[in-house]
């Protein structure tokens, strides 16, 4: 980068001494075109793919490629929004569809980026591991000729003889847990191999995580089920309200047999303070059977505490109230008695829903008809005269049900899937009250709303149930993903916090017969502590081989190489 004047030789000395201080591949500058031939091209392509430069570009592309998925609605998370988007953008929609932008993370191009990255990663790890094993088997390289060129350097003259100094140095380095050996007239020592171990572990852990994640995606399933208190669920496909699964999921093989019943749901809320109305506890007490015919066990499921049956997790996802209503026809015969789940609209559980009487009802004229009631429910009503149907508190303090009554054809036979919380009123007629206005009324528990002209009645029963939506999901491989993640953190910490460094101690007899000791250290580029560490080592060795009295100024320059271009203060 910057063009400072590097004295001849500095770079090469350092490169030679620093060789294999990391297993990072040497960057070959610029793509040299291969000789013709398939093998030549393949080899060239492979070298490019596993180079650091390309790894960097792929990493960059990966983060760039992840962006659209966060800004454009994704069919995986919110299919409704995707449909809305496609309706609103008639030109962009199809284009996005083609580019896979509604399912970025499973699109061809996104997969291509990360698969290339991981191929590159494997192509990088394998040779690096071998290289590292080789380094562990070998010994730290011998001292470069001119130690004074290295980033940290010290020298002094001593009367101890060279042999003695080297022995002392070797012992000292070994004691400090350096891998050290005597090479020629110098001790070569190296420490911090764990950095490389950490780095390799980190990159391998990334592969483990990816495989675990891919495995999980292929075999996972995830479904939702609304259960009213007293009702149950058994783990077979038709029982789910909604269900999503990975490509290799097989419902016969992968749905483990279990069933459960929701005995009771309890929610408590803060009654005072700034957090008034905040849920304190959500608890679903369930009885469950594991296996085809196991014995029933009792447990409770709370938010953040799923129930785990054979690796399938059952989460408490949402809750609300279900009103029990009894509908009678004109003759007083009960035609329907049902618990109708209401959809919560706010945090105080003001809810909305639809009560549908599909069959069994005959109107005053004895003709078959369907009934539909739009319902609003609040667990805590503000009080008469205080108007609106907005709940004041999420618990059942003052429950009120408001109904609009209609009759006609609910349109359920049209074959279109219906929203259970809404009425399709296109073929329904409102009942009218005595003033000719649409019939509506607010009921307290136990109260009954009479339909006009002997059309029957609807009773808001006293027992109000709660319902819970459970999310039932299974994602195999998550323990592997977690293990990989933890290994990645530790590997990363090792790789970033451990310094790999080399120290050389050379002791030779100077021309005047006095021993010259030189010590130098070299670390990876960001080595703040290296000079300090070298200082300590110098101090220790110096204590064993103290400085000789200063020679006359005319001694040869090699004795004091520090003077060469380097100023000391």
């Amino acid at each position, binding site marked *: 980068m910057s063009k400072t004047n590097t004295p001849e030789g500095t770079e090469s000395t350092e490169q030679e001494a620093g060789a294999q201080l990391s297993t990072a591949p040497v960057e070959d500058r610029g793509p040299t075109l291969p000789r013709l031939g398939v093998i030549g091209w393949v080899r060239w392509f492979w070298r490019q793919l596993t180079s650091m430069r390309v790894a960097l570009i792929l990493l960059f592309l990966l983060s760039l490629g992840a962006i659209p998925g966060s800004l454009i609605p994704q069919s995986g998370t919110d299919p409704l929004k995707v449909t809305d988007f496609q309706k609103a953008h008639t030109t962009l929609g199809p284009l996005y569809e083609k580019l896979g932008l509604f399912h970025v993370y499973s699109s061809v191009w996104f997969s291509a980026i990360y698969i290339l990255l991981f191929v590159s990663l494997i192509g990088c790890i394998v040779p690096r591991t071998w290289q590292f094993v080789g380094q562990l088997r070998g010994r730290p390289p011998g001292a470069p000729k001119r130690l004074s060129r290295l980033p940290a350097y010290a020298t002094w003259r001593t009367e101890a003889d060279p042999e003695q100094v080297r022995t002392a140095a070797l012992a000292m380095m070994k004691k400090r847990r350096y891998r050290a050996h005597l090479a020629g007239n110098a001790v070569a020592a190296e420490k911090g191999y764990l950095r490389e171990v950490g780095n390799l572990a980190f990159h391998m852990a990334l592969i483990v995580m990816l495989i675990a994640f891919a495995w999980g995606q292929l075999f996972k399933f995830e479904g939702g089920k609304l259960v009213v208190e007293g009702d149950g669920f058994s783990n077979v496909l038709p029982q789910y309200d909604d269900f999503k699964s990975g490509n290799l999921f097989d419902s016969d093989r992968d749905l483990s047999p279990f069933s459960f019943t929701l005995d009771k749901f309890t929610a408590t809320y803060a009654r005072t303070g700034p957090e008034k109305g905040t849920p304190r506890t959500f608890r679903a007490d369930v009885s469950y059977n594991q296996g085809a015919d196991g014995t029933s066990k009792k447990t409770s499921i709370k938010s953040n505490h799923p129930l785990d049956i054979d690796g399938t997790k059952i989460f408490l996802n949402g809750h609300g109230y279900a009103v029990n209503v009894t509908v009678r026809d004109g003759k007083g015969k009960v035609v329907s008695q049902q618990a109708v789940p209401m959809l919560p609209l706010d945090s105080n559980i003001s809810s909305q829903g639809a009560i549908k009487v599909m069959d069994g009802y005959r109107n005053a004229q004895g003709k078959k008809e369907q009934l539909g009631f739009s319902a609003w429910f609040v667990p805590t009503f503000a009080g008469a005269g205080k108007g609106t149907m907005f709940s004041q508190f999420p618990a059942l303090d003052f429950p009120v049900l408001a109904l609009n009554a209609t009759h006609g054809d609910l349109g359920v036979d049209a074959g279109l899937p219906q929203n259970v919380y809404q009425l399709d009123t296109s073929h329904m007629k409102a009942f009218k009250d005595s003033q000719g206005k649409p019939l509506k009324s607010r009921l307290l528990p136990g109260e009954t709303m009479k339909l006009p002209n002997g059309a029957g009645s609807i009773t808001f029963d006293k027992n109000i149930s709660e319902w819970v939506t459970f999310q039932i999901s299974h994602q195999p491989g998550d323990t592997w993903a977690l293990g990989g993640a933890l290994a990645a953190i530790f590997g990363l910490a090792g790789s970033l916090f451990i310094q790999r460094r080399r120290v050389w101690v050379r002791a030779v007899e100077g021309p005047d017969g006095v021993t010259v000791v030189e010590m130098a250290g070299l670390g990876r580029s960001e080595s703040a502590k290296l000079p300090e560490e070298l200082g300590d080592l110098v101090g220790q060795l110096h204590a064993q081989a103290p*400085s000789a009295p200063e020679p006359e100024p005319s001694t040869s320059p090699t004795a004091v190489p520090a003077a060469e271009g380097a100023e000391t203060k």
Partner: protein
Amino acid sequence: MILAAATNENLAHTSNVLIYSSMAVYLLAFFANMAEWIFGSRSKVGRTAAALTTNAEAGAAASAVKIQVKQKNGGTAVLERPQVVTRAAAGARDVPDGPGASGGDEQGDLYGRIAISLTILAFLIEFSGVLTRALSVQRAPWGNMYEFNLTFSTVAVGVYLALLALKKNVRWLGLPLVTTVLLDLGLAVTVLYTASDQLVPALHSYWLYIHVSTAIFCGAVFYVGAVGTILYLFKDSYENKLANGGTPGRFATSVLERLPASQSLDKFAYRVNAAVFPLWTFTIIAGSIWAGDAWGRYWGWDPKETWSFITWVAYAAYLHARATAGWKGRKAAYLALIAFGCWIFNYYGVNIFVTGKHSYAGV
């Protein structure tokens, strides 16, 4: 019961007063920092140019590399231990660090010290503000962006003060940090203010404490790193200009001359970013463990998750760039800034513009 509510409201009110007071003190600290820079401009320092020109002239000499000496007196040795001579890595420009904002000017230095004292005071006040806020809502103060902003700036200042306490050369961070903390708090109390409020039940988990606290901490540290990176870019252009024989403007000279050398700033930024990267990795993993417990899947490409991932990959790219020879210096610095930009977008952008499971906080 009413009493309890009143206490809570009192606490919330106290918290607001404390936050405003801390802003006032930060403002004073800002002026003191400015004074340090202004008084410091009286000193004439031209060390960078000197170093670079002597370098150029000494090109033919055996070595042009400047030396910085670590001098430690050996403990048990009778004689003073030999000095360790250090030199910059081959190919690096070797320029001494600037003298700091005060430029060696005594009055400037005095103001600098006052600025630090005021910053400490403001930090303590702000910290109490955050604490009372937490007490008033009886939970960790990380429920919405207002609280998030408060905690964020408190932690950033805390990191700065901790580095100072560790005797690191970071006084140059003072002015930019205090300025942005003021902006951050200003934004918090005007735009983002939310009366103390409740949390949705999905947040009732100890993972909230683990995941969110590390997220805030990482953000604050990344921020400190980003300030270092930006200053590095300025200083590096300045040095480049000088090295190429150009004459930078007087203002630039006065300011940049007093900053540490570009090398030092670059290293500072790298160390800060590298040190916190494993924690950021942990933050994401903790988040996905929590998501696994709360939402039934540990990774679902929710916008917040996606942007954490993007940020993570961007920082990984930066670290890679540093580990590869050809990409040090400015290019790597740009990557670091992009990575920090991703972090900021994850925090502001995703909360405000994108809806996802994480948008519970309101603004």
